[in-house]
């Protein structure tokens, strides 16, 4: 058990990728933090922004090409060429979502609601939002602001605070 005086008080998690597994890793970490009574911020940048774009957040995919850990049902490795078959990515993605649902992992929009209900904060990266031509109204209503890296560091500061990049 860690030193009680220095237990984690705040985590700021940066989500920079938009695949199902990358986004869920950030959401599970963030929601897990608020459930422990730890202050939590989620900061979405670059392709991670997919997770907070209203129209896209519940339609994320998993990449099937260039992922050597991808397995077929039964456990053998999925050959790279198989990933280019039309519909493969959609099929794998829907299987991932189905398996997660069995474990009571909610869809992204509902997960974000749970996180916010627990007091968690959501932010979007200004540079990436500008690059992708995104406006506040394109994003989930739970996003507190589109902020710069400087503002992010201000928010992330404080004693026993941690920054996690995913």
């Amino acid at each position, binding site marked *: 058990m860690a030193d009680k005086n220095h237990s984690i008080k705040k985590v700021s998690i940066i989500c920079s990728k938009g695949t199902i597994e990358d986004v869920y890793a950030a959401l*599970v970490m963030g*929601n*897990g933090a*608020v*459930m*422990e*009574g730890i202050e939590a911020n989620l900061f979405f940048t670059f392709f991670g922004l997919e997770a907070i774009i209203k129209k896209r957040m519940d339609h994320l995919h998993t990449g099937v090409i260039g992922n050597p850990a991808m397995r077929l049902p039964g456990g053998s490795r999925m050959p790279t060429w198989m990933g280019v078959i039309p519909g493969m990515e959609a099929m794998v993605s829907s299987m991932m979502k189905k398996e997660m649902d069995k*474990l*009571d*992992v*909610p869809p992204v929009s*509902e*997960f974000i*609601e*749970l996180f916010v*209900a*627990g*007091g968690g904060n959501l932010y979007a990266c200004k540079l990436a939002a500008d690059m992708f031509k995104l406006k506040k109204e394109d994003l989930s209503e739970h996003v507190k602001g589109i902020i710069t890296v400087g503002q992010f560091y201000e928010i992330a500061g404080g004693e026993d605070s941690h920054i996690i990049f995913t």
Partner: protein
Amino acid sequence: MAQKTYAGVTVEVNEEGYFTNPSQWTKEIAKDIAKEEGIELTDKHFEMLEYLRNRFTSGEQLSIRGINKSGIVDVKAFYQMFPGAPLKKATKIAGIPKPTSCV
């Protein structure tokens, strides 16, 4: 195995203070544990504790998502009822083991 005395009754708990024998739990005991956690229990709290105990007895995994489905309170209110680490606190007061789910 540790023991603790709540409301004049000695109960078996683990090293984190969670009940190892949920059948030893009573409402009076719950009030005492809650006091230790700085919470004054209301009827809503008891409704929630009963819900959690029922879910546990029927062998279901407890999760924060499940609270929304309980029909008792929403997640936001749940966080307010058991401030800090809500599911951990609520299960402790409900006299059931600490939840093992990540969501």
